Structures are given as C-alpha cells and as structure tokens.
C-alpha cells in the first residue's frame, strides 16, 4: 500500500535520513526502531506530508503523494505528547476529523461514541481533555486518529511519556485495535519491547539508514551488525581473530565461523554469542572465571572475566572457573 522510496533529508546541514526505502503492506504493522535523534519522527512527518524530503518519493497504491497536501492524504498521526486540542472536549477532539469530512451530525455523533468505546473511554465525551490522565489523553489521541477511518495510521513514540505499567496495558490495547481494524500502521519507537510486541515487521534505523529489516524474531536472533546487536542488547558481542582453519579465537574460547563468506586468517571479526540456551558442562566448550552472579527472576546472570555474561539456571561460585557449551545457532557473525 505505502511505498517509501529513497527518502533523503538533512537537518541543519547534517544528513538525517540518507536514502530510506521500505513498504507497508495492507493490514501490516511496521515498527521503526531507532535511538532518539535517528530521524524516525522526521520520516513520519515526511510520510504525513508535514515536511518535504530533499529527495525521494512517498507513494500510496502506486501514486506519488508529492503534490497531495497533508489534509488530503488521510493518514492518521498519533503524537508523543498527544497534541490534543485544549479548547475542545473529548468528543470534540474525536469528532474533529469527522467534521473535516463534512459528515452529517448524527453520523459524527455515532462514530464518536463507537470510537471512544473502542479505546475504552465510553462516557468520557464531555470531559475536558486537560483534566484527563496521561493514559486517558493518549487513548483520546488514538480515538481521534482512528475516527475518520484513515488509510494509514502512524504513531510517533505514543507511549514514551507513560509509566511502565500503563505502557504495557496500552500496548496490549493497541495491538488488539490494530489487528481488529486492519489498518496498516507505522509505529515509531526507541523501545524494542514496544516494537517487538506490536510489529509484524521491524526496521532498525541508524544514522539515517535502515540497518536491518525483518520479523521481530529474525531481527533479534540475527541483528547483522555490531551496532544493532548492542542497541538491541541481543547477546554478547565478542571481538576475535580468525584462525587458520575457519575458527575464531575470543577471550573466552574459540568458536566456529558460521558466516557464509570467506575470511582471511588473522582478520578481526565480531561475533554475537547468545546469552540463553547455554549449558554448563564439566569440561570442554568455552571457559572463564566467574566474576559476578546476579539473581534474576528466571535464573542467574553470570558474568565471566572480560565482560561476557550468560543466563544459567544455577548459580556457580564467584571466583571459580566454569565450562559452558554454546549451541551452534547461538553464534552469529556481525559486520
């Protein structure tokens, strides 16, 4: 449905977005995941038509939107700090987009009631938006964007200002509403938990480029680059030198080199070594001295000398040496 092609934009002379291309299919939720300042919000605003890219195109169903002003794109946008109209009531806010469509009064009323019901705000019609809590305000913002039946919904860090419990509750509601309505959506966040929870597909944004693209599971297990692995905290990133014979030596032992392309002996490579699915063995595998053991609700986080850490079901003795066996799928090459 939506196609973003080679978007470029700079901010105060610095390139912010350098050639961004991706698509959003019908009914799909795509999450743009990146650190703050990575240009995620700017990209959303370009898609909404609120900003003009220096190069590139935004297409909807094959048609270029360059000459379509924001109010004719019918893309809903939910802002991080809600941007509710303070001079209107809850119902007035939700009805705003419907009034812009010049719908008859009764239909507007009915749709406002239904939409508020959808976001669990039935009965809030006449409340002032300034009297609402953060979570309620965000629900109104969502209802306001949903009410005119947009062709695409966009979320700009919508849960960033809320506390953890409320965020998880709203994430679940949002997932339900997105599945139910079937509207394609783009969700921008710096929080991987939100991204993995909501997304059909995750796009990792870094330094103005899309670094990795795939389902949450694909992105998590194989982030592809050192930056992505560290950003997602997907496991231990270990530097090592390639040995003759296709193995890599790191501070905690040697690993087989699993990537497809050939490496020269002596070359420096980075590996991602998973923290989970690790078995403690009596001998062999990799080894290290335990420097710290921290209790976690589902096991123990064991840190070895030099930094790497693993999750083990039992706590080893601090200061002693342990031997670990890492399954081959727990080791990935990073670029």
């Amino acid at each position, binding site marked *: 449905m939506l196609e973003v092609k080679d978007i470029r934009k700079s901010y105060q002379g610095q390139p912010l977005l350098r050639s961004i291309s991706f698509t959003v299919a019908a009914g799909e939720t795509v999450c743009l995941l990146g650190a703050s300042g990575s240009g995620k919000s700017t990209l959303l605003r370009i898609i909404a038509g*609120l900003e003009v890219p220096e190069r590139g195109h935004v297409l909807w169903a094959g048609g270029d939107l360059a000459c379509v002003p924001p109010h004719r794109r*019918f893309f809903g946008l939910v802002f991080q*700090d809600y*941007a509710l109209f303070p001079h209107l009531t809850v119902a007035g806010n939700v009805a705003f987009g419907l009034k812009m469509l010049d719908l008859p009064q009764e239909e507007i009323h009915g749709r406002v009631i239904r939409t508020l019901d959808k976001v669990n705000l039935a009965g809030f019609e006449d409340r002032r938006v300034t009297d609402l809590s953060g979570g309620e305000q965000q629900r109104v913002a969502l209802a306001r964007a949903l009410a005119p039946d947009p062709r695409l919904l966009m979320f700009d860090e919508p849960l960033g200002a809320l506390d953890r419990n409320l965020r998880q509750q709203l994430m679940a509601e949002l997932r339900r509403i997105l599945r139910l309505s079937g509207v394609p959506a783009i969700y921008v966040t710096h929080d991987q938990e939100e991204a993995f929870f909501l997304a059909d597909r995750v796009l990792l944004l870094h330094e103005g480029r899309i670094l990795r693209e795939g389902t949450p599971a694909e992105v998590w297990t194989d982030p592809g680059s050192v930056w992505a692995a560290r950003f997602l905290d997907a496991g231990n990133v270990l530097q090592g030198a390639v040995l003759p014979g296709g193995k890599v030596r790191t501070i905690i032992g040697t690993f087989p080199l699993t990537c497809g392309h050939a490496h020269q002996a002596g070359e420096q490579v980075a590996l991602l070594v998973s923290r989970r699915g690790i078995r403690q063995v009596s001998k062999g595998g990799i080894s290290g001295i335990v420097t710290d053991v921290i209790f976690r609700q589902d096991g123990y986080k064991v840190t070895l000398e030099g930094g790497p850490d693993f999750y083990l079901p039992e706590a080893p003795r601090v200061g002693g040496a342990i031997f670990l066996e890492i399954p081959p799928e727990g080791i990935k090459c990073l670029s």
Partner: protein
Amino acid sequence: MPPNTRPEQTEAQKRFSIHTFASSWIRPVLPWLGVSVFFSLFFFYPLARILWVGLNPASLLALFPGSFLLASRVLGFTFYQAVLSTLLTLALGLPVAFVFARFDFPGKPLLRTLTAIPFMMPTVVVAAGFNALLGPHGWINLGLMRFFHLQTAPIAFIGTLGAILLAHVFYNTTIIIRLVGNTLSHLDPQLEQAARTLGADPKRVLYRVILPLLRPSILAAALLTFIFDFTSFGVILLLGGPQFSTLEVEIYKQAVQAFNLPLAGLLSLIQLLCTLIFSVLYSRILTRTVVTSPPRAAGTSLHKVQTLRQKLFLGGMVLLLLLLFVLPLASLPLSSVVRLEADRGQRGQVSYGLTADYFKELFINRSDSIFYVPPFEAIGNSLAYAALTVILSLALGFPVAMALIHPRRLERILDPLLMLPLGASAVTLGLGFIVSFNKPPLAWVTSPLLVPLAHTLIALPFVIRSLQPALASIPDRLRQAAASLGASPSRVWFTVDWPIVVRATLAAAVFAFTISLGEFGATSLVVRPEYPTLPIAIARFLSQPGGLNYGQAMAMATVLMVICGSGSLLIERLRLPGTGDF
C-alpha cells in the same frame, strides 16, 4: 516548654525569643507604614473628596440637566473613539503578531523593538512627533506646499479624529503584538499538524484551531488597548484639538478652564466606574489566557519566507511598520534642527535649512517672550521633580517589595491595594489633589511639591512591581549553598543579594524617573504655572504660533524623547530574564 526545663538554652536564644515576642505584631506592619500613610493621604483621601464633590446632592441638582447631557455626550465620544482605535489597532496588530510569531526574516528583532518604542514615549513626544510629520508645519505638508506651490497646508491632520486614531494605533499596536504573539509562539505546532493530518486545510486550521486557542489572549490584548484608549489624555488634548472631548479631557477642561469642580468630580466618578469595570473584566480574561498545552521552545514553528505572495505580504507589512513607527519619531529631531519657516516677528532675510538655534534658544530667557519661564528652567524643574519622585517612590516601595517576597496574610490583603492607582486615570488623580488640598489645614495646592507627589503615586505600582520579582528571584537555595560553602551572613548578602538588589533598584529608579519626566495628565492639573515641567512646556509651545515656538517645542520634545528612550533601553538592559511584559 517552660524555660527552666531548658537549662542549656543560651543567652542569645533567650534574647532572640524575647525580641520576636516584642515585635511580633510591629515587625510585619513596619514596611507598610510609609506606603499606608502616603496612600491614605494622597490616594484614598482625594478619591473620597472626589466622591463627595461629585455626588454632593446640592451640586448634582445644580448640574442637572445641561451638564448631564454634556457628560453623556463626552462618555459617548470616549467609547466611540476607544472602540474605533481598538479595532484599528487589532487590524494592524494581529497580522503583524502572526508574521512575527511564524516567520523568520532578517531585521525581525529590530522591527519588534521598533514597534515597542512608542509605548515608552510620553504622549507629548508622540503628539509633537505627529505634529512634526503631519502638522500644518510638518514635513509632509511643507513638502507638498513647496512642490505644488500651494499657499496653505493641503493635509489637515491635527485636530481630526484621524490624528487621534493614528496616535492610538501607534501607541498600542505593541500590546497586540506582544500579548497575542506570545501566546501564538507558545502554541504547540503539533496541534496544527494534528489538525492537518485529520483533514483540515490551512484555512480550517486557522478558524478551528488557532483562533479559538488565541481568543482569550486576543480579547485580553484588545481590552487592554481599549482601556488605554479610553483613558487617553495627552493624545486627544494635543492632537484632537478643542472640538474633541473625552472624559479625561473634559475633566481637565472643567477643572482647570471652567473651574467647575462638581462637574469634573462627577465625570471623574464615571471614569473611575468605567475603568473599574474594564479592569475587573481584564483580570478575568487574563486568568483564561493560560494555555494548557505544554510550552514549547519558541522558535520551533518558525518558517522562512518562501513564496512570492509571502514575500510581497511581508514586504508590504515591513514598509507599513517602518512608515508608521519610524517617521513620526524621526521627524521630531529633524524638525528641531531645521528651519522651515520664518520665526514670529522675524523680518527680512530668513535663512532656511539646518540650524542649532532652537536648541540654543532653550537656554535664552527672552524678555519679550510671552512665557516668562524659559525652556531650560522647565527642563530643570522636570529633572528636580523626577529626582524627588525616584527618592520618594524607592523609599516607599523598597520596604514593601521586600515584605512581599514572603507574603503573609497582611501582604496578601494589602498587595492588590497597591495597584489601585493604576486603575484611576492620571487626570482623576490630579483632580483629587486639587479638590483635597485647596483649603487649610491641607492648603498645598500652591506648592510645587504636589507634582512629585502625584508622580510618585503613579510610579509607585511600577516601582514595586519591578522590584518585587527581582528581589524574590533570589533563590534561598543560592543563599544556603553560599552559607554551606562557608560564607558568613554578611558575605552571603554581599555576594548573592547585593548584585541583584542593585540591578533591580537601578531599574526601578530609571522607571520612576522616566515616568515622572513624561507624565502629562496629572501634571496638567496640579502644576504651578511658574514651575512647568518639560511636557507642560512642550504643550504650551506647541499651541503657540510661529516658527521659533514650534522649533523650541520640537527641540524640547527631542530632549525628552532621547531621555525616555535611553531610560527604557537601560531598563531593558537591567531587567532580569524571565520577568513578564504586562
């Protein structure tokens, strides 16, 4: 706890507790003593006298019905010109506020300052400025006369309603620009973007989102403008001429020219009632202007001027602002150094062109002049009055401002009373002095000291309001930090408090000084003819025929303009960041 159970209590602690006991009721009252006496004698008593004079049944009966007709006619015109002025001010101010808040263009800060300059200028200066530009001897008329070889001035400006309206627009546009522009630049730009993504075109965004959100501040700015136009005195007296009479002008005429104090009192009461109603309305509206959306850093919604239409619009606006705000005040000093017509009684060859004569004349006591007070004496009087006003208002205001830092119940009750003189018009305050101090034991009406006393009354609210936030801005944490770093109490005071106190006091002093120098309304009523102030002298010279008188009026107005302009710049420099506008 009885003292005998606390043997460890030191001598110093005992003294402290006795000290606090003895002064428990005196100490909070002490700072208010001076102000209370001053206000009772020079504000509340005169008001009560006006009330008595104006509502005295005997004199009311004598005034009926002719004077009532006059009063209603005057009241009608006061409303009429104020409404017209306000509408015109809005018509100019709103678009400018929008452009200033939304667009970034070179010269914007300068233009912004320019629009605020009139606000600091005394009315006589503004009247003289418009006279120098559009008066019968003004640049435009003289230029047209010479160019088209005309015998009389083609543009009749002074003495028309247009002159009043233009001067009011000139004065008050900055209120609209500041108040509305401030709200506008603090509007969350995301609100507009949200409206856009919800299907609103730019026009609907304006009417459905921006204007509704601006309505309280537009209303507040309009009402404030209206109040200033309603109580305007100098502009109407000096630019409107004899045929236009607002309440203010009529009070002055009745009190000074017709000696009809009962009628002046009655008009004053009407004036007081009106301003009271407007002030209450204004403060009501002001509480609603608080924008509830989170404040954004101003400037995030600034655009560059791009399309040709925008450029044309902006160019036209800048040109209009420059014409309106630069020409009158620029004409003034020009007129003071250029001889354009023969002086009165001058025969033979007249040397036209650049001249320093008008400034030289300021120091000459012409025995043949019908004024026995030479201009330099008026300047001297004004400076002396201003100095007295500074001393008096600081002496009265400083203790109060200190007391207001930690307001208790007493402060909360008395604080609003301090602002009352702002609500009464200057002419009413002057009238109050006349009707109060005209017979023993308070027969001070012949004393020149009434002028600085009236000025103090007008300046005091401003002095307190500029001192108080600065003094209160010194955070206790700063003092505590200094103390915890080892500074003794006196060290703390000198390193933390002193620099801010000095700045604030200086700013307040300059404020009082410029207010006193420019004050015209109250002064017109209480001034002794033999000790005129600079504005009074300017008004006199302006009303006299002849090039010399005209030139001297221009020279004096230029002096006044320069002093008030630099005073305002100084205040702006001294002002702490973050203290508000109106």
